[in-house]
């Protein structure tokens, strides 16, 4: 397979054309904000509701526009491929969705995303809009450390969208929404693997190269290399390695109730994701973990990268109720 092969026009227009095609596909859910790369929930601004804004670089579809709708996001801001959107775009989104109860930002922990969203926040606060935020860092591949920018935000971000969005739908305050969002972050860990790299449209080269029998363990979602290069093993062995990294991290999942997400990074067929799910469910059972929710599919992708990530979220009564709450978005429904 030749990675450069893409169904695109001028790479410069990939993001805007994608957004137009998205809006055309889901007119009941989203509307575009003229002159921006922002997609708003059809009903935005929703009066008196805390509004959620998320986004980041493009190339993670269905994230983030696919999660715009009732019970999740009020706006998604799309940057260039793998490039965080600029402060002015995020600022426009904040202004467009504010219904008076304040705006909550869900930021994946990347230097660029954090800086751009925080600058937008400063601009919004200067205009008297109250803004709060959460920074998602569920990727256990990267060691956590106060000397670095810490861990990356990957597929676990979708759980934050769902649960913070459900809380906001209930009419909760900005502080309450922030509280549950932080709880999700505290309860959620992920780890991913890539079998192939991906190519940013316009760059014309793969982000890294792998031998026929190699995989990158601990991959992010921007085509950056993982933390370790290894020989490809069986689905069960790969799943076991990711699962162990997640289980051995700081959240104690043993004996708990959890939600599981097996997230495809792009090219990996659903059949393979289900093979992984089969093993993960068996193993969680061994650890006497009760799986309350399972999500298998493409939720947070990395263009056409082949690979997947495993995410666990430890549940409690509140999280269960919020995860089950009504949701109506193009990519996440109950």
């Amino acid at each position, binding site marked *: 397979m030749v990675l450069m092969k893409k169904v695109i026009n001028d790479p410069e227009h990939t993001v805007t054309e994608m957004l137009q095609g998205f809006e055309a596909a889901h007119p009941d859910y989203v509307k575009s904000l003229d002159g921006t790369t922002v997609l708003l929930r059809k009903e935005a601004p929703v009066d008196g509701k805390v509004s959620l804004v998320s986004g980041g670089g493009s190339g993670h579809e269905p994230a983030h526009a696919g999660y715009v709708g009732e019970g999740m996001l009020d706006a998604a801001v799309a*940057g260039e491929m793998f490039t965080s959107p600029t402060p002015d775009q995020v600022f426009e989104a904040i202004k467009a969705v504010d219904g008076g109860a304040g705006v909550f930002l869900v930021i994946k922990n990347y230097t660029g995303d954090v800086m751009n969203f925080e600058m937008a926040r400063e601009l919004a606060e200067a205009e008297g809009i109250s803004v709060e935020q959460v920074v998602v860092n569920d990727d256990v*591949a990267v060691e956590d450390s106060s000397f670095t920018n810490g861990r990356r935000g990957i597929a676990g971000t979708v759980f934050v969208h769902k649960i913070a969005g459900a809380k906001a739908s209930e009419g909760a305050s900005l502080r309450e929404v922030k509280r549950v969002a932080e709880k999700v972050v505290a309860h959620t860990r992920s780890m991913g693997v890539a079998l192939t790299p991906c190519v940013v449209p316009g760059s014309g080269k793969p982000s890294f190269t792998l031998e026929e029998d190699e995989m990158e363990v601990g991959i992010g979602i921007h085509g950056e290399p993982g933390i370790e290069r290894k020989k490809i093993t069986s689905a069960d062995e790969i799943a076991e390695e990711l699962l162990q990294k997640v289980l051995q991290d700081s959240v104690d999942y043993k004996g708990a109730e959890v939600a599981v997400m097996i997230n495809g990074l792009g090219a990996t067929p659903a059949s393979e994701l289900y093979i992984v799910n089969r093993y993960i469910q068996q193993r969680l059972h061994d650890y006497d973990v009760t799986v309350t929710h399972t999500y298998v599919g493409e939720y947070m992708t990395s263009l056409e990268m082949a690979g997947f990530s495993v995410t666990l979220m430890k549940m409690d009564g509140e999280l269960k109720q919020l995860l089950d709450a009504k949701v109506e978005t193009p990519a996440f429904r109950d």
Partner: protein
Amino acid sequence: MEMKAEQAVAWVEKANALMQSHKEYLTELDQAIGDGDHGLNMSRGFQEAELKVSATDYDTAADVFKDVATVLMSKIGGASGPLYGTAFLKMSMTLKGKDPVTEANLAEAVEAALNGMKQRGKAEQGEKTMIDVWHPVADFLRNGQNVQPGKLEETAEEAMNQTKDIMATKGRAAYLQERSKGHIDPGSTSSFYLFQALADVWKKGE
């Protein structure tokens, strides 16, 4: 050197020329330890900056830098957008009412830019980021001994090359930990081009 609006515009134009001609290379560097978009980001941002400043009449360098800041901030994104945007914004603020800009003024401006970037990115020198180029350049300009454009360029280039052996603790490259060693930092490289462009304009100005 004395910098008027004209030289400020020339700096941006030269910087853009360098970003365009090194687009591929910057992307390669970013693919090695980042996400492979730095070349695209820089070329997009400085292209727009040049479009803007070459189509506008300015009285002072400060005015030029203000527009550059806005354009970079709104066109680049990623990590480098806010940082370069902040840099030019701080320079513009420091140079307000200083026309023409003297070497002393420039030193203050770069100093202010550096501090703004450190605050924004929470990075210190030695973390394998563009700070590692701005820091020595600021020092070089501040201490004022035989400040010539050639030396400025050398200082920036040396600093850029030294990022190769550092293990990244900030930015995307930090995720690679040990594996980030042995690669020059992309943002330090684009910062080197920026100062190379400055040196170039400076030389012409003498």
